């Protein structure tokens, strides 16, 4: 089985994010592999360990993205593709899906794994768009993947109510939920071996994508999350407080 895992190198959202003049303040920020993509990588490596599989990751973006590709190597992925293009710093989901599809066709992958959404944009569009463009079966939000045979998988997915068990034939696209596995820590040996693996660089243009005109949407402004207003504490007579609070709920909060 040939597995392609699409990973995104994103701002570490655990850090305090600041906004300056309608744009993210990038100084001092750190970048990591998007959390759901780590689950996708783990699933690919686990499939490789339990069944014979060839695993490749792809990441799109600036040269920094190679850090996440190397992390995937350290976790056990065999090979990596970096699609680099200065115009692709913030590509939209459709462009990303087109690029992944280009690579997929070029290299004949049986299974494309993605995180259910990226940690930074929370769009959750790429997997579905990719399946649509590629005309492949698609399961979103998978919580378990089992191999039936070379050409068939049994996939459990988290639905709104309960879980669904789906049988699908390969090639296919699957996006994974974070409950599917616990991503392994990269071992020191894996990390040092990853150093020796090479990353193939591909040009979006060669895949028939005009990166200059690719994005259909553009982020115009970035607004920070609104800080939650301080709570209020009331002391004194219960009757008085109740009246005061009810008054505030009606007139200020306007919830009653």
């Amino acid at each position: 089985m040939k597995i392609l895992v699409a990973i995104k190198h994103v701002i570490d959202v655990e850090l305090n994010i600041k906004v300056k003049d309608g744009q993210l303040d990038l100084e001092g920020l750190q970048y990591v592999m998007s959390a759901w993509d780590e689950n996708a990588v783990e699933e690919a490596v686990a499939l490789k360990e339990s069944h014979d599989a060839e695993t490749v990751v792809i990441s799109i973006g600036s040269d920094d993205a190679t850090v996440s590709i190397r992390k995937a190597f350290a976790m056990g992925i065999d090979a990596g593709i970096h699609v680099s293009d200065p115009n692709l710093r913030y590509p939209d989901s459709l462009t990303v899906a087109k690029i992944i599809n280009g690579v997929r066709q070029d290299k004949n992958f049986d299974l494309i794994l993605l995180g259910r959404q990226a940690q930074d944009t929370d769009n959750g569009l790429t997997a579905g768009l990719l399946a649509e463009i590629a005309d492949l079966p698609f399961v979103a939000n998978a919580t378990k993947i089992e191999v039936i045979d070379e050409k068939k998988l049994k996939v459990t997915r988290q639905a709104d109510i309960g879980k669904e068990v789906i049988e699908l034939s390969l090639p296919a696209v699957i996006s994974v939920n974070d409950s599917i596995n616990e991503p392994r820590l990269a071992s020191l040996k894996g990390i040092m071996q990853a150093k020796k693996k090479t990353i193939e660089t591909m040009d979006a243009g060669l895949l028939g994508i005009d990166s200059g005109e690719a994005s259909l949407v553009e982020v115009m402004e970035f607004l920070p999350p609104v800080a939650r207003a301080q709570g209020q504490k009331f002391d004194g007579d219960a009757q008085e407080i109740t009246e005061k609070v009810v008054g505030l709920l009606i007139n200020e909060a306007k919830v009653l």
Partner: protein
Amino acid sequence: MTEKIVKGGEFLVKELNKKDIFIPEEFSVEQKQIADTARQLVENEISPNIEAIEGHDFELVKKLFSMCGELGLLATDVPEEFGGLELDKVTSMIVAENIAPSGSFSVAFTAHTGIGTLPLVYYGTKAQKDQYLEKLVDGKWVAAYCLTEPNSGSDALSAKATAVLSEDKKYYILNGTKQFITNGGFAKLFTVFAKIDKEHFTAFLVDSDFEGVSLGPEEKKMGIKGSSTCSVILEDAKVPIENLLGEKGRGHKIAFNILNIGRLKLGASVTGAGKAAIGESIKYAKDRKQFGTSICNFGAIKEKFANMVGDIFASESLVYRLAGDLDVNFDTLDKSSTDYYADYEKVFEDFSVECAISKVFCSEALSRVVDEGVQIYGGYGFIQEYPAEKHYRDERINRLFEGTNEINRLVITGGILKKSLKGELPLQAEAMKAFEGLMSPSLDEVDPSVPFEKEKYLIHNLKQILLILAGAAAQKFMDKLQHEQEILISAADVIILIYAIESAVSRAEKAYEAAGDKKKQLLLAVVEVFTFNALESLSKAAKQAAFYIEEGDNLLMILSGIRRYTKYAPVSLLNSKRLLADSIIESEAYLF
């Protein structure tokens, strides 16, 4: 990486070019990933189990050792041939630093990977390594180091434990009691020091299952309560002659050289512990409200954070500078040579002063940090439920083990004097020049608008002070100087602080080039805050030494020299402190 190969001790007589210092900002992608692995292991598997570890659940500790083994965290200093990874010292420090927030487990970990495993790596025969090393690397066996005895601590060579060859000449029969053995309760392999025929101090590899080996009860300790510390009792213990480690009568070589790397690594560990303590204190100071606002908004608290960051920045700069220097020296050695570890040992010996500095400076920096940590927590800092109390207790041992800080101070000044006597360091000639400089007026002008220029000028001057003191002391006491411990210790303080200030300043200067605007400001601020604090301590030590050494006109001249050479104007000190504090409060973590 560094351009030039720096030698041990030469920082006192040479100016450091920023090109010749390794800084944490230069960590490779792999080194950062290794840091992540160690950090995440602590966060996911160790920290949630701290209570069980503190309650001596040694089965759990052994399981954690296996996990560390699987991840390769026990393999950093071991050759590939025996299942290791043989990574550089910088990477070893990264592992030690990131394991450190696990407290008691970190002590067990460091004892195993350092004093537990390294004697075998450096001095073991191939057969001994084949037999034991892989088990230590994969964490199936835990190792311990048995040097201390009830009546022999700092005076390690006065050990009473004995070894006698058995009649059939197949065994050494060991007798004696080894005390305060870290990992003693669950270790399988002990490196035991004993005197053959009460004379030849020698190391042995002792399996805990050998006949005649038993353990004393667990000690009840002030801190690091989760680590195992007990006596190892040898009663006619039968140790096969193949298990003699190194050479008969050369145990002191092993004991002292292993201490060098232990002291280096301790610097890294306490740096990691300091960062963790800072992180906890900030979170608390943000949550804790008094007078209607978070206490982190008060200048009294902000100032503490600024000083804490300054101390840890210096520790971190110092440890990685030293590890980087060692690495470039090790890189020149021929790994395939049979003398590889003998040459390796020489490099460590060459840097024994710096290793002792790492131990003393970083452990005392941590002591200041955890003390302020308790203070920030206020009354809650005194309550066991809060982390500050544990940080405070756990810190104390660092100033005691791996040689007390007093012994290490004597090693520092003693080591420098020895290098001078051996002609490896032109201390006398430089001291003469410094005296001449003292007599002539100062014509140097420093452009304060050039970043770090005034600090670099100060460092040059501080070295003059040390040279003057060393020259005066040598002249007055000659070969009796080694008995003047008060002077040696004051001089050690001057040496330690010169190395710490220089490490912090040169690291900042090098990092400044590639830094963004915000980071540039932070680097300037942290250097100003730390330099000022360290300089105050250095001035006291220098003056003290001057009073101990000289009297009359000579004393007055040296004191005026100290005044002249310690001039430093931290004109934006208050703003620097506030900037550091505000940034650290915003990021909720150590800044650099």
